[in-house]
């Protein structure tokens, strides 16, 4: 029996064939180190990395692809942004829904003299932009927030928050797009996003070990890199270059991974983000409808309407623990899902599910309505236990 993979919010699976083919092609036919030598195979490797940058720039409406820095994941991107930007005495605002990739760097900074405000959301994960508006101080340097919660699935009011930060000089909007890049339209210009951290291995259909950070023009002067080393540029100098993207990209990059990421991003550009969203919305709506069959036996978290969510759904079943439910689904039904806290204790405190957590189903572009129906059938059998 084939595994039914409902853990796409952790990492997407399967990937488009084009992702794998691009990785094999790079390693079989090119293999050079990008930007490190002048020979053809090095230039071809550099071209692959650059084309990946261009595809992502198109996807996020970034006018200059060199504003995108590659990292190993969204967490590294967020750390570059937050640790590099915030200084003792600065004030930073975030939400009560954040993943530890945001929360842990911020808690660290808070223990080193940065003032931190955490704006609560409703128990469905909905943020009132007025609450955020009231939190600004004269020394506020940044608002850091997720584009959509990895626990409740709630899509956050980025545009409204972007309007708040754009109105204030010196306030930077840093967005964690780990769950949304590739799955929802992301337009850094229209949304007023100054820093966008993304991962490659979720809805962008790249392999694990890829991600990046968009940095608005000029902002790099206020963000110190936390790594320094060889860049293939300015080799006669022993100091780190100040220009993008080399300032933050040192050491040999993950070229094979970036080849896959470029192909994944191209796949999304070809299908269209709107088509991806439409498909995932259909699956989400179908599963929300199926959950209603179980009445009070299911506690659903996050917004009731599919339109307000990305394609993940957290829930609990009567008195069955999330881990027991996940083990049953894996062993008896070949359904892969994720129980627990999802690396986001703050979000679980917000919705009242700390410390036991929830069961999370996350649908992807390659899931089908049959998968949704099978999942509903499996939950029925578990409840009838």
């Amino acid at each position: 029996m084939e595994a039914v993979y409902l853990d796409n919010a952790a990492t997407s699976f399967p990937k488009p064939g084009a992702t794998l083919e691009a990785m094999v092609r790079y390693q079989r036919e090119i293999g050079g180190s990008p930007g490190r030598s002048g020979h053809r195979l090095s230039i071809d490797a550099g071209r692959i990395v650059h084309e990946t940058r261009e595809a992502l720039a198109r996807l996020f409406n970034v006018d200059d692809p060199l504003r995108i820095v590659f990292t190993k994941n969204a967490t590294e991107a967020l750390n570059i942004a937050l640790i590099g930007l915030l200084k003792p005495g600065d004030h930073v605002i975030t939400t009560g829904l954040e993943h530890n990739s945001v929360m842990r760097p911020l808690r660290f900074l808070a223990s080193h003299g940065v003032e931190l405000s955490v704006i609560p959301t409703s128990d469905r994960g909905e943020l009132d932009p007025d609450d955020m508006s009231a939190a600004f101080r004269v020394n506020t340097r940044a608002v850091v927030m997720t584009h959509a919660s990895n626990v409740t699935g709630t899509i956050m009011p980025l545009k409204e928050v972007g309007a708040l930060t754009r109105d204030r000089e010196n306030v930077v909007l840093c967005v964690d797009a780990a769950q949304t890049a590739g799955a929802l339209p992301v337009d850094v210009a229209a949304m007023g996003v100054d820093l966008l951290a993304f991962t490659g291995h979720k809805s962008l259909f790249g392999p694990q070990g890829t991600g990046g950070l968009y940095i608005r023009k000029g902002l790099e002067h206020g963000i110190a890199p936390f790594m320094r080393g060889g860049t293939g540029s300015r080799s006669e100098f022993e100091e780190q270059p100040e220009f993008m993207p080399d300032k933050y990209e040192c050491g040999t990059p993950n070229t094979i991974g970036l080849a896959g990421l470029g192909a994944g991003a191209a796949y999304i550009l070809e299908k269209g983000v709107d088509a991806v969203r439409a498909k995932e919305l259909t699956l989400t709506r179908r599963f929300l409808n199926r959950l209603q069959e179980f009445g009070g036996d299911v506690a659903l978290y996050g917004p009731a309407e599919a339109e307000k969510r990305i394609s993940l759904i957290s829930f609990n079943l009567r008195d069955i623990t999330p881990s027991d439910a996940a083990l049953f689904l894996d062993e008896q039904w070949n359904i892969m899902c994720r129980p627990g806290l999802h690396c986001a204790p703050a979000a679980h405190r917000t919705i009242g599910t700390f410390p036991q957590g929830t069961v999370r189903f996350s649908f992807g572009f390659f899931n089908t309505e049959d998968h949704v129906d099978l999942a509903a059938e499996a939950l029925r059998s578990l409840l009838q236990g």
Partner: protein
Amino acid sequence: MTREDPFGVVLFESVSHALRAEKISKAENIPCKLIPVPRQLSSDCGVCLRFSVVHRERVERALSGQLDFYEIVLL
């Protein structure tokens, strides 16, 4: 363009810039090629964009405002 033609090169801060310049130039149908930076110009390990001198103005126009580059050198 053969190696014997008089040519010029554009020098950049990094290979990322050079690759972007190549794309911009090719989109304008300007024949060009990425080559290792000639030894007499720099000991850096980077690449530069080579073009025939007859295209000098077109290259400069295509890149201006789009991309930072150090300089154009005729060889």
